[in-house]
Protein backbone atom coordinates (compact mmCIF):
# COMPACT_ATOMS: atom_id res chain seq x y z
CA UNK A 1 0.00 0.00 0.00
CA UNK A 2 1.34 3.39 -0.94
CA UNK A 3 1.88 6.07 1.65
CA UNK A 4 -0.26 9.10 0.92
CA UNK A 5 2.04 11.43 2.79
CA UNK A 6 5.73 10.93 3.42
CA UNK A 7 7.87 13.41 5.34
CA UNK A 8 11.63 12.90 5.54
CA UNK A 9 14.12 14.75 7.71
CA UNK A 10 12.07 17.93 7.58
CA UNK A 11 13.46 20.99 9.35
CA UNK A 12 12.25 24.57 9.48
CA UNK A 13 13.75 27.59 11.17
CA UNK A 14 12.37 31.09 11.49
CA UNK A 15 15.56 33.09 11.89
CA UNK A 16 17.52 31.38 14.63
CA UNK A 17 14.43 29.77 16.12
CA UNK A 18 14.18 26.16 15.06
CA UNK A 19 10.51 25.20 14.89
CA UNK A 20 10.75 21.79 13.24
CA UNK A 21 13.83 19.68 13.81
CA UNK A 22 14.50 16.67 11.60
CA UNK A 23 10.93 15.42 11.46
CA UNK A 24 10.12 12.18 9.64
CA UNK A 25 6.88 10.24 9.44
CA UNK A 26 4.53 8.63 6.94
CA UNK A 27 0.77 8.43 6.69
CA UNK A 28 -0.62 5.33 4.90
CA UNK A 29 -3.66 5.47 2.67
CA UNK A 30 -7.09 5.73 4.30
CA UNK A 31 -5.74 6.38 7.78
CA UNK A 32 -7.05 9.02 10.12
CA UNK A 33 -3.86 10.50 11.43
CA UNK A 34 -3.94 12.59 14.59
CA UNK A 35 -1.18 15.14 14.77
CA UNK A 36 -0.78 16.20 18.37
CA UNK A 37 1.25 18.78 20.17
CA UNK A 38 1.03 21.76 22.44
CA UNK A 39 0.22 25.21 21.11
CA UNK A 40 3.24 26.38 19.18
CA UNK A 41 4.70 22.90 18.79
CA UNK A 42 4.91 23.37 15.02
CA UNK A 43 1.79 21.59 13.81
CA UNK A 44 0.53 24.42 11.59
CA UNK A 45 4.05 25.07 10.30
CA UNK A 46 4.37 21.43 9.23
CA UNK A 47 0.98 21.52 7.52
CA UNK A 48 1.83 24.72 5.66
CA UNK A 49 5.01 23.11 4.41
CA UNK A 50 3.02 20.12 3.13
CA UNK A 51 0.87 22.62 1.22
CA UNK A 52 3.88 24.42 -0.22
CA UNK A 53 2.95 27.65 1.56
CA UNK A 54 6.14 27.72 3.63
CA UNK A 55 9.62 26.82 2.48
CA UNK A 56 11.31 24.01 4.45
CA UNK A 57 14.85 24.77 5.61
CA UNK A 58 15.76 21.21 4.71
CA UNK A 59 14.15 17.84 4.10
CA UNK A 60 11.57 16.57 1.67
CA UNK A 61 7.82 15.99 1.55
CA UNK A 62 6.05 13.64 -0.83
CA UNK A 63 2.29 13.57 -1.43
CA UNK A 64 0.89 10.60 -3.36
CA UNK A 65 4.36 9.83 -4.63
CA UNK A 66 5.02 13.33 -5.98
CA UNK A 67 7.44 15.74 -4.31
CA UNK A 68 6.02 18.97 -2.86
CA UNK A 69 7.66 22.05 -4.31
CA UNK A 70 7.55 25.32 -2.41
CA UNK A 71 5.39 28.01 -3.98
CA UNK A 72 3.50 26.69 -6.95
CA UNK A 73 3.02 23.00 -6.19
CA UNK A 74 1.14 20.52 -8.32
CA UNK A 75 0.61 18.18 -5.37
CA UNK A 76 -2.08 20.52 -4.06
CA UNK A 77 -4.54 18.97 -6.51
CA UNK A 78 -4.52 15.85 -4.30
CA UNK A 79 -5.07 17.82 -1.13
CA UNK A 80 -8.07 19.35 0.58
CA UNK A 81 -7.10 21.79 3.29
CA UNK A 82 -9.11 23.17 6.17
CA UNK A 83 -7.22 26.01 7.89
CA UNK A 84 -7.58 26.50 11.65
CA UNK A 85 -9.71 29.59 11.10
CA UNK A 86 -11.05 29.27 7.57
CA UNK A 87 -11.61 32.61 5.89
CA UNK A 88 -13.91 33.14 2.96
CA UNK A 89 -14.98 36.01 0.79
CA UNK A 90 -17.68 37.44 3.03
CA UNK A 91 -19.65 38.89 0.14
CA UNK A 92 -20.31 35.48 -1.38
CA UNK A 93 -22.95 32.90 -0.59
CA UNK A 94 -21.88 29.33 0.25
CA UNK A 95 -23.00 27.95 -3.08
CA UNK A 96 -21.21 30.70 -5.01
CA UNK A 97 -18.05 30.01 -3.03
CA UNK A 98 -18.14 26.30 -3.78
CA UNK A 99 -18.78 27.09 -7.43
CA UNK A 100 -15.65 29.25 -7.48
CA UNK A 101 -13.64 26.47 -5.82
CA UNK A 102 -15.01 23.94 -8.29
CA UNK A 103 -14.14 26.08 -11.29
CA UNK A 104 -10.61 26.53 -9.99
CA UNK A 105 -10.14 22.79 -9.62
CA UNK A 106 -11.52 22.26 -13.12
CA UNK A 107 -14.71 20.38 -12.28
CA UNK A 108 -17.52 20.41 -14.83
CA UNK A 109 -20.59 22.54 -14.19
CA UNK A 110 -22.66 19.44 -13.53
CA UNK A 111 -20.12 18.00 -11.10
CA UNK A 112 -19.93 21.31 -9.27
CA UNK A 113 -23.69 21.46 -8.90
CA UNK A 114 -24.02 17.88 -7.67
CA UNK A 115 -21.01 18.00 -5.37
CA UNK A 116 -21.96 21.37 -3.89
CA UNK A 117 -25.47 20.25 -3.07
CA UNK A 118 -24.22 16.97 -1.64
CA UNK A 119 -21.55 18.61 0.51
CA UNK A 120 -23.71 21.47 1.73
CA UNK A 121 -26.24 18.89 2.85
CA UNK A 122 -23.48 16.84 4.48
CA UNK A 123 -22.28 19.81 6.53
CA UNK A 124 -25.80 21.06 7.16
CA UNK A 125 -25.55 24.34 5.30
CA UNK A 126 -27.98 23.56 2.49
CA UNK A 127 -30.53 26.01 3.85
CA UNK A 128 -28.06 28.77 4.75
CA UNK A 129 -28.51 30.82 1.61
CA UNK A 130 -27.01 34.05 2.89
CA UNK A 131 -23.67 35.81 2.58
CA UNK A 132 -20.78 34.12 4.38
CA UNK A 133 -20.00 37.41 6.14
CA UNK A 134 -22.94 36.70 8.45
CA UNK A 135 -21.89 33.15 9.33
CA UNK A 136 -21.01 31.96 12.84
CA UNK A 137 -17.66 30.36 13.54
CA UNK A 138 -19.14 26.87 13.48
CA UNK A 139 -20.86 27.49 10.15
CA UNK A 140 -17.60 28.75 8.66
CA UNK A 141 -15.82 25.65 9.94
CA UNK A 142 -18.43 23.44 8.30
CA UNK A 143 -18.24 25.37 5.04
CA UNK A 144 -14.48 24.93 5.35
CA UNK A 145 -14.93 21.18 5.39
CA UNK A 146 -17.25 21.35 2.39
CA UNK A 147 -14.73 23.33 0.33
CA UNK A 148 -11.90 21.01 1.41
CA UNK A 149 -13.83 17.94 0.23
CA UNK A 150 -15.09 19.46 -3.01
CA UNK A 151 -12.41 18.05 -5.31
CA UNK A 152 -12.53 14.60 -3.65
CA UNK A 153 -9.00 14.94 -2.27
CA UNK A 154 -6.80 11.94 -1.61
CA UNK A 155 -5.43 13.72 1.43
CA UNK A 156 -7.53 15.90 3.70
CA UNK A 157 -5.55 18.14 6.00
CA UNK A 158 -7.43 19.77 8.87
CA UNK A 159 -5.71 22.22 11.17
CA UNK A 160 -7.38 22.06 14.57
CA UNK A 161 -10.85 21.65 13.10
CA UNK A 162 -12.56 21.31 16.46
CA UNK A 163 -10.70 23.75 18.67
CA UNK A 164 -13.06 26.69 18.48
CA UNK A 165 -16.34 24.81 18.44
CA UNK A 166 -18.94 24.00 21.05
CA UNK A 167 -19.43 20.32 22.02
CA UNK A 168 -22.22 19.85 19.49
CA UNK A 169 -20.24 21.47 16.69
CA UNK A 170 -17.23 19.33 17.59
CA UNK A 171 -19.25 16.17 17.41
CA UNK A 172 -20.62 17.17 14.01
CA UNK A 173 -17.18 17.90 12.63
CA UNK A 174 -15.76 14.61 13.95
CA UNK A 175 -18.71 12.71 12.52
CA UNK A 176 -18.08 14.24 9.12
CA UNK A 177 -14.40 13.26 9.30
CA UNK A 178 -15.38 9.71 10.23
CA UNK A 179 -17.79 9.62 7.31
CA UNK A 180 -15.13 10.50 4.76
CA UNK A 181 -12.73 7.87 6.07
CA UNK A 182 -12.35 5.15 3.49
CA UNK A 183 -12.61 7.65 0.65
CA UNK A 184 -9.73 9.80 1.74
CA UNK A 185 -6.76 9.96 4.06
CA UNK A 186 -7.20 12.45 6.88
CA UNK A 187 -4.44 14.26 8.72
CA UNK A 188 -5.71 16.43 11.49
CA UNK A 189 -3.95 18.38 14.16
CA UNK A 190 -5.43 19.00 17.53
CA UNK A 191 -4.69 19.29 21.19
CA UNK A 192 -8.05 17.90 22.23
CA UNK A 193 -7.13 14.36 23.19
CA UNK A 194 -10.63 12.95 23.42
CA UNK A 195 -11.15 13.82 19.74
CA UNK A 196 -8.10 11.80 18.84
CA UNK A 197 -9.23 8.78 20.81
CA UNK A 198 -12.61 9.02 19.16
CA UNK A 199 -11.58 8.90 15.52
CA UNK A 200 -7.85 8.44 14.94
CA UNK A 201 -6.14 5.17 14.16
CA UNK A 202 -2.64 6.63 14.08
CA UNK A 203 -1.06 9.44 16.01
CA UNK A 204 2.13 11.43 16.20
CA UNK A 205 3.01 13.71 19.06
CA UNK A 206 5.16 16.68 18.20
CA UNK A 207 7.27 18.18 20.94
CA UNK A 208 9.98 20.83 20.58
CA UNK A 209 9.92 20.35 16.83
CA UNK A 210 10.66 16.65 17.11
CA UNK A 211 8.48 13.60 16.94
CA UNK A 212 8.13 12.47 20.54
CA UNK A 213 5.89 9.52 19.75
CA UNK A 214 4.27 8.00 16.66
CA UNK A 215 2.48 4.89 15.51
CA UNK A 216 -0.96 3.35 15.68
CA UNK A 217 -2.91 4.28 18.75
CA UNK A 218 -3.22 0.67 19.96
CA UNK A 219 0.52 -0.04 19.48
CA UNK A 220 1.50 3.05 21.38
CA UNK A 221 -0.78 2.19 24.24
CA UNK A 222 0.65 -1.34 24.25
CA UNK A 223 4.25 -0.14 24.26
CA UNK A 224 3.70 2.37 27.00
CA UNK A 225 1.72 -0.03 29.07
CA UNK A 226 2.66 1.13 32.48
CA UNK A 227 -0.57 0.47 34.24
CA UNK A 228 -1.39 1.71 37.68
CA UNK A 229 -3.06 -0.05 40.56
CA UNK A 230 -5.12 2.17 42.78
CA UNK A 231 -5.77 1.04 46.34
CA UNK A 232 -7.93 3.16 48.57
CA UNK A 233 -8.21 2.57 52.31
CA UNK A 234 -10.78 3.74 54.80
CA UNK A 235 -8.19 5.39 57.02
CA UNK A 236 -4.62 6.59 56.98
CA UNK A 237 -3.73 4.04 59.68
CA UNK A 238 -4.74 1.19 57.36
CA UNK A 239 -2.59 2.59 54.61
CA UNK A 240 0.41 2.98 56.90
CA UNK A 241 -0.02 -0.58 58.03
CA UNK A 242 -0.14 -1.75 54.43
CA UNK A 243 2.99 0.06 53.31
CA UNK A 244 4.95 -1.10 56.32
CA UNK A 245 4.63 -4.67 55.06
CA UNK A 246 7.95 -5.99 53.67
CA UNK A 247 6.24 -7.85 50.78
CA UNK A 248 5.12 -4.65 49.12
CA UNK A 249 8.20 -2.57 49.96
CA UNK A 250 9.77 -3.26 46.55
CA UNK A 251 6.63 -2.08 44.75
CA UNK A 252 6.48 1.23 46.52
CA UNK A 253 9.42 2.82 44.72
CA UNK A 254 7.14 3.87 41.89
CA UNK A 255 4.06 4.60 43.97
CA UNK A 256 2.17 7.84 44.36
CA UNK A 257 0.61 8.32 47.78
CA UNK A 258 -2.11 10.47 49.21
CA UNK A 259 -3.55 10.36 52.75
CA UNK A 260 -5.67 7.27 52.34
CA UNK A 261 -4.77 5.89 48.94
CA UNK A 262 -1.83 4.91 46.81
CA UNK A 263 -1.24 4.19 43.14
CA UNK A 264 1.39 1.60 42.28
CA UNK A 265 2.84 1.75 38.75
CA UNK A 266 4.11 -1.42 37.22
CA UNK A 267 4.81 -3.05 33.88
CA UNK A 268 3.51 -6.36 35.14
CA UNK A 269 0.25 -5.47 36.70
CA UNK A 270 -0.93 -9.06 37.30
CA UNK A 271 2.05 -9.89 39.49
CA UNK A 272 1.69 -6.64 41.39
CA UNK A 273 -1.98 -7.16 41.93
CA UNK A 274 -1.57 -10.67 43.37
CA UNK A 275 1.22 -9.47 45.68
CA UNK A 276 -0.96 -6.64 46.89
CA UNK A 277 -3.98 -8.89 47.41
CA UNK A 278 -1.89 -11.43 49.30
CA UNK A 279 -0.58 -8.70 51.61
CA UNK A 280 -4.07 -7.36 52.19
CA UNK A 281 -5.34 -10.80 53.16
CA UNK A 282 -2.39 -11.47 55.40
CA UNK A 283 -2.77 -8.16 57.23
CA UNK A 284 -6.54 -8.48 57.19
CA UNK A 285 -6.90 -5.05 55.64
CA UNK A 286 -10.08 -4.29 53.73
CA UNK A 287 -9.64 -1.51 51.23
CA UNK A 288 -12.72 0.31 49.96
CA UNK A 289 -11.48 0.27 46.40
CA UNK A 290 -8.99 -1.54 44.20
CA UNK A 291 -8.78 -0.49 40.58
CA UNK A 292 -6.51 -1.20 37.63
CA UNK A 293 -5.87 2.04 35.78
CA UNK A 294 -5.33 1.75 32.03
CA UNK A 295 -2.97 4.22 30.35
CA UNK A 296 -4.85 7.14 28.81
CA UNK A 297 -3.76 9.22 25.91
CA UNK A 298 -3.61 12.09 28.33
CA UNK A 299 -1.08 10.33 30.54
CA UNK A 300 0.96 9.43 27.46
CA UNK A 301 0.81 12.98 26.21
CA UNK A 302 1.88 14.34 29.58
CA UNK A 303 4.66 11.80 29.73
CA UNK A 304 6.17 12.80 26.40
CA UNK A 305 5.76 16.56 26.57
CA UNK A 306 6.69 17.18 30.18
Amino acid at each position, binding site marked *: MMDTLCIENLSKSFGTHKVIDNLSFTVPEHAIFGFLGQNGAGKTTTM*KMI*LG*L*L*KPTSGSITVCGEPVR*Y*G*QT*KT*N*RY*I*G*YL*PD*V*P*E*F*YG*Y*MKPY*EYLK*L*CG*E*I*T*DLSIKEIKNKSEELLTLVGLDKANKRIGGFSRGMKQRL*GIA*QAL*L*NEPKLLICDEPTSALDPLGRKEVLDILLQVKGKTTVVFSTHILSDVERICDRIAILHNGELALSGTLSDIKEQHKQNGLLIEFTSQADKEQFISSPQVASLLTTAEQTDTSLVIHSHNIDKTESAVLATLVEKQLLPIKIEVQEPTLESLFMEVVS
Partner: protein
Amino acid sequence: MKSYLAFTKKEFCETVRTYKLLIMGAVFLLLGMMNPITAKITPQLLKSFMPAGIEITIAEPTAMDSWAQFFKNVPQMGLIILVIIFSGIMANEFSRGTLINMLTKGLSRSVVILSKFTMAVLLWTASYALCFGVTYVYTAYFWKGDGVSNILFSVFCLWLFGILLLATIMLGGVIFNSSYGCLLFTGGFVVALLLINIVPRLQKYNPITLASSNMALLANEMSVADFTLPIVICCLAVIGFVISAIALFNKKQL
Protein backbone atom coordinates in the same frame (compact mmCIF):
# COMPACT_ATOMS: atom_id res chain seq x y z
CA MET B 1 -7.65 29.40 -18.60
CA LYS B 2 -10.79 28.19 -16.85
CA SER B 3 -9.39 29.09 -13.46
CA TYR B 4 -8.38 32.51 -14.83
CA LEU B 5 -11.95 33.20 -15.92
CA ALA B 6 -13.32 31.86 -12.64
CA PHE B 7 -11.03 34.00 -10.53
CA THR B 8 -11.61 37.09 -12.67
CA LYS B 9 -15.33 36.53 -12.22
CA LYS B 10 -14.76 36.39 -8.47
CA GLU B 11 -12.81 39.67 -8.70
CA PHE B 12 -15.69 41.24 -10.61
CA CYS B 13 -18.15 40.01 -7.99
CA GLU B 14 -15.93 41.55 -5.32
CA THR B 15 -15.70 44.84 -7.20
CA VAL B 16 -19.48 45.07 -7.36
CA ARG B 17 -20.35 43.79 -3.89
CA THR B 18 -17.68 45.74 -2.01
CA TYR B 19 -18.86 48.94 -3.74
CA LYS B 20 -15.58 49.57 -5.59
CA LEU B 21 -17.49 49.83 -8.86
CA LEU B 22 -19.96 52.26 -7.34
CA ILE B 23 -17.27 54.48 -5.82
CA MET B 24 -15.10 54.57 -8.94
CA GLY B 25 -18.12 55.16 -11.16
CA ALA B 26 -19.46 57.96 -8.97
CA VAL B 27 -16.11 59.71 -8.56
CA PHE B 28 -15.22 59.62 -12.24
CA LEU B 29 -18.72 60.63 -13.30
CA LEU B 30 -18.50 63.60 -10.97
CA LEU B 31 -15.04 64.51 -12.27
CA GLY B 32 -16.30 64.21 -15.83
CA MET B 33 -19.09 66.70 -15.14
CA MET B 34 -16.94 69.05 -13.08
CA ASN B 35 -14.30 69.58 -15.77
CA PRO B 36 -16.38 71.50 -18.34
CA ILE B 37 -18.63 73.09 -15.76
CA THR B 38 -15.73 74.48 -13.74
CA ALA B 39 -14.20 75.85 -16.92
CA LYS B 40 -17.52 77.42 -17.87
CA ILE B 41 -18.38 79.10 -14.60
CA THR B 42 -14.93 80.11 -13.28
CA PRO B 43 -15.01 83.57 -14.96
CA GLN B 44 -18.48 84.23 -13.59
CA LEU B 45 -17.43 83.08 -10.14
CA LEU B 46 -14.39 85.33 -10.21
CA LYS B 47 -16.51 88.27 -11.34
CA SER B 48 -19.00 87.80 -8.56
CA PHE B 49 -16.27 87.66 -5.94
CA MET B 50 -14.58 90.87 -7.13
CA PRO B 51 -15.19 93.87 -4.91
CA ALA B 52 -17.29 96.57 -6.56
CA GLY B 53 -15.38 98.96 -8.72
CA ILE B 54 -12.57 96.64 -9.69
CA GLU B 55 -12.71 95.45 -13.24
CA ILE B 56 -10.76 92.50 -14.49
CA THR B 57 -10.77 91.12 -17.92
CA ILE B 58 -10.97 87.40 -18.18
CA ALA B 59 -10.75 85.67 -21.48
CA GLU B 60 -13.90 83.86 -22.52
CA PRO B 61 -13.46 80.15 -21.54
CA THR B 62 -12.78 77.73 -24.36
CA ALA B 63 -12.73 73.98 -24.94
CA MET B 64 -9.03 74.13 -23.98
CA ASP B 65 -10.00 75.27 -20.46
CA SER B 66 -12.34 72.32 -20.12
CA TRP B 67 -9.60 69.86 -21.15
CA ALA B 68 -7.15 71.69 -18.89
CA GLN B 69 -9.50 70.85 -16.04
CA PHE B 70 -9.70 67.24 -17.24
CA PHE B 71 -5.93 66.83 -17.32
CA LYS B 72 -5.62 68.50 -13.95
CA ASN B 73 -8.40 66.66 -12.11
CA VAL B 74 -7.88 63.13 -13.41
CA PRO B 75 -4.13 62.90 -12.72
CA GLN B 76 -4.62 64.41 -9.29
CA MET B 77 -7.92 63.39 -7.77
CA GLY B 78 -8.73 60.52 -10.14
CA LEU B 79 -5.43 58.69 -9.94
CA ILE B 80 -5.19 59.16 -6.17
CA ILE B 81 -8.61 57.61 -5.71
CA LEU B 82 -7.68 54.81 -8.10
CA VAL B 83 -4.56 54.03 -6.07
CA ILE B 84 -6.38 54.18 -2.73
CA ILE B 85 -9.20 51.93 -3.95
CA PHE B 86 -6.79 49.29 -5.23
CA SER B 87 -4.11 49.59 -2.53
CA GLY B 88 -5.69 46.72 -0.60
CA ILE B 89 -5.96 44.46 -3.62
CA MET B 90 -3.40 41.98 -2.27
CA ALA B 91 -3.23 43.09 1.38
CA ASN B 92 -6.89 42.25 2.05
CA GLU B 93 -6.34 38.72 0.81
CA PHE B 94 -3.11 38.31 2.78
CA SER B 95 -4.38 39.68 6.07
CA ARG B 96 -7.59 37.64 6.02
CA GLY B 97 -5.99 34.52 4.65
CA THR B 98 -8.66 34.10 1.98
CA LEU B 99 -6.12 33.15 -0.67
CA ILE B 100 -4.98 30.07 1.27
CA ASN B 101 -8.13 28.17 0.31
CA MET B 102 -7.76 29.14 -3.33
CA LEU B 103 -4.07 28.30 -3.61
CA THR B 104 -4.36 24.99 -1.80
CA LYS B 105 -7.02 24.06 -4.37
CA GLY B 106 -4.32 24.26 -6.99
CA LEU B 107 -5.05 27.78 -8.26
CA SER B 108 -1.91 28.98 -9.96
CA ARG B 109 -0.32 31.97 -8.28
CA SER B 110 0.22 33.77 -11.58
CA VAL B 111 -3.52 33.53 -12.23
CA VAL B 112 -4.16 35.40 -8.98
CA ILE B 113 -1.97 38.30 -10.08
CA LEU B 114 -3.21 38.33 -13.68
CA SER B 115 -6.90 38.16 -12.69
CA LYS B 116 -6.56 40.96 -10.20
CA PHE B 117 -4.63 43.06 -12.68
CA THR B 118 -7.21 42.39 -15.39
CA MET B 119 -10.06 43.46 -13.15
CA ALA B 120 -8.21 46.58 -12.00
CA VAL B 121 -7.45 47.53 -15.62
CA LEU B 122 -11.07 46.94 -16.64
CA LEU B 123 -12.44 49.04 -13.80
CA TRP B 124 -9.97 51.85 -14.45
CA THR B 125 -10.71 51.78 -18.17
CA ALA B 126 -14.48 51.86 -17.64
CA SER B 127 -14.36 54.66 -15.07
CA TYR B 128 -11.90 56.65 -17.15
CA ALA B 129 -13.98 56.18 -20.30
CA LEU B 130 -17.04 57.39 -18.42
CA CYS B 131 -15.20 60.48 -17.21
CA PHE B 132 -13.82 61.19 -20.67
CA GLY B 133 -17.17 60.62 -22.35
CA VAL B 134 -19.00 63.01 -20.04
CA THR B 135 -16.34 65.70 -20.37
CA TYR B 136 -16.27 65.23 -24.13
CA VAL B 137 -20.05 65.58 -24.53
CA TYR B 138 -20.32 68.65 -22.30
CA THR B 139 -17.30 70.31 -23.91
CA ALA B 140 -18.67 69.70 -27.37
CA TYR B 141 -22.02 71.06 -26.23
CA PHE B 142 -20.55 74.26 -24.76
CA TRP B 143 -17.77 75.04 -27.23
CA LYS B 144 -18.08 72.74 -30.25
CA GLY B 145 -14.55 71.46 -29.43
CA ASP B 146 -12.61 74.03 -31.45
CA GLY B 147 -8.85 74.37 -31.48
CA VAL B 148 -7.98 71.19 -29.65
CA SER B 149 -5.55 68.74 -31.26
CA ASN B 150 -4.55 65.19 -30.39
CA ILE B 151 -7.28 64.78 -27.84
CA LEU B 152 -7.67 61.01 -28.20
CA PHE B 153 -3.94 60.40 -28.14
CA SER B 154 -3.53 62.59 -25.08
CA VAL B 155 -6.33 60.77 -23.29
CA PHE B 156 -4.69 57.48 -24.21
CA CYS B 157 -1.40 58.61 -22.66
CA LEU B 158 -3.04 59.39 -19.33
CA TRP B 159 -4.88 56.03 -19.45
CA LEU B 160 -1.58 54.25 -19.99
CA PHE B 161 -0.09 56.04 -16.99
CA GLY B 162 -3.03 54.75 -14.92
CA ILE B 163 -2.16 51.21 -16.05
CA LEU B 164 1.44 51.79 -14.94
CA LEU B 165 0.18 52.80 -11.50
CA LEU B 166 -1.96 49.66 -11.30
CA ALA B 167 1.05 47.50 -12.20
CA THR B 168 3.01 49.31 -9.47
CA ILE B 169 0.22 48.56 -7.02
CA MET B 170 0.35 44.87 -7.93
CA LEU B 171 4.09 44.77 -7.34
CA GLY B 172 3.86 46.79 -4.11
CA GLY B 173 0.98 44.62 -2.97
CA VAL B 174 3.05 41.46 -3.36
CA ILE B 175 6.13 42.96 -1.69
CA PHE B 176 4.28 44.42 1.31
CA ASN B 177 1.66 42.66 3.37
CA SER B 178 -0.26 45.82 4.26
CA SER B 179 -2.15 48.27 2.12
CA TYR B 180 -0.13 51.11 3.64
CA GLY B 181 3.07 49.50 2.42
CA CYS B 182 1.53 49.24 -1.01
CA LEU B 183 0.41 52.91 -0.94
CA LEU B 184 3.86 53.99 0.19
CA PHE B 185 5.49 51.96 -2.57
CA THR B 186 3.24 53.43 -5.27
CA GLY B 187 3.64 56.95 -3.86
CA GLY B 188 7.40 56.47 -3.69
CA PHE B 189 7.42 55.32 -7.30
CA VAL B 190 5.61 58.48 -8.47
CA VAL B 191 7.92 60.68 -6.38
CA ALA B 192 10.90 58.90 -7.95
CA LEU B 193 9.50 59.65 -11.42
CA LEU B 194 9.04 63.31 -10.46
CA LEU B 195 12.62 63.47 -9.17
CA ILE B 196 13.95 61.89 -12.36
CA ASN B 197 12.13 64.61 -14.28
CA ILE B 198 14.45 67.22 -12.72
CA VAL B 199 17.31 65.91 -14.85
CA PRO B 200 16.68 67.41 -18.30
CA ARG B 201 18.50 64.63 -20.11
CA LEU B 202 16.15 61.99 -18.72
CA GLN B 203 12.90 63.89 -19.27
CA LYS B 204 12.29 62.51 -22.73
CA TYR B 205 12.30 58.94 -21.34
CA ASN B 206 10.17 59.59 -18.29
CA PRO B 207 6.71 57.97 -18.27
CA ILE B 208 5.43 60.76 -16.02
CA THR B 209 5.28 62.84 -19.20
CA LEU B 210 2.19 60.78 -20.05
CA ALA B 211 0.32 62.34 -17.14
CA SER B 212 1.96 65.77 -16.95
CA SER B 213 2.42 67.06 -20.48
CA ASN B 214 -1.01 66.33 -21.92
CA MET B 215 -1.89 70.02 -22.30
CA ALA B 216 1.30 70.68 -24.26
CA LEU B 217 0.15 67.97 -26.63
CA LEU B 218 -3.31 69.53 -27.01
CA ALA B 219 -1.81 72.95 -27.67
CA ASN B 220 0.59 71.48 -30.24
CA GLU B 221 3.58 72.52 -28.14
CA MET B 222 4.69 68.90 -28.14
CA SER B 223 4.26 66.39 -30.90
CA VAL B 224 3.06 62.80 -30.78
CA ALA B 225 6.61 61.69 -31.56
CA ASP B 226 7.82 63.23 -28.28
CA PHE B 227 5.69 60.68 -26.45
CA THR B 228 7.01 57.59 -28.19
CA LEU B 229 9.86 56.92 -25.78
CA PRO B 230 7.80 57.44 -22.59
CA ILE B 231 5.11 55.14 -24.00
CA VAL B 232 7.66 52.41 -24.78
CA ILE B 233 9.28 52.78 -21.35
CA CYS B 234 5.85 52.76 -19.70
CA CYS B 235 4.77 49.57 -21.49
CA LEU B 236 8.04 47.86 -20.61
CA ALA B 237 7.63 48.94 -16.99
CA VAL B 238 4.07 47.57 -16.86
CA ILE B 239 5.17 44.21 -18.27
CA GLY B 240 8.23 44.16 -16.02
CA PHE B 241 6.24 45.00 -12.89
CA VAL B 242 3.58 42.37 -13.54
CA ILE B 243 6.17 39.68 -14.28
CA SER B 244 8.14 40.64 -11.16
CA ALA B 245 4.95 40.58 -9.11
CA ILE B 246 4.24 37.03 -10.32
CA ALA B 247 7.83 35.90 -9.72
CA LEU B 248 7.89 37.37 -6.20
CA PHE B 249 4.44 36.00 -5.38
CA ASN B 250 5.56 32.53 -6.46
CA LYS B 251 8.27 32.70 -3.80
CA LYS B 252 6.18 34.32 -1.09
CA GLN B 253 5.55 32.52 2.21
CA LEU B 254 1.89 32.68 3.11
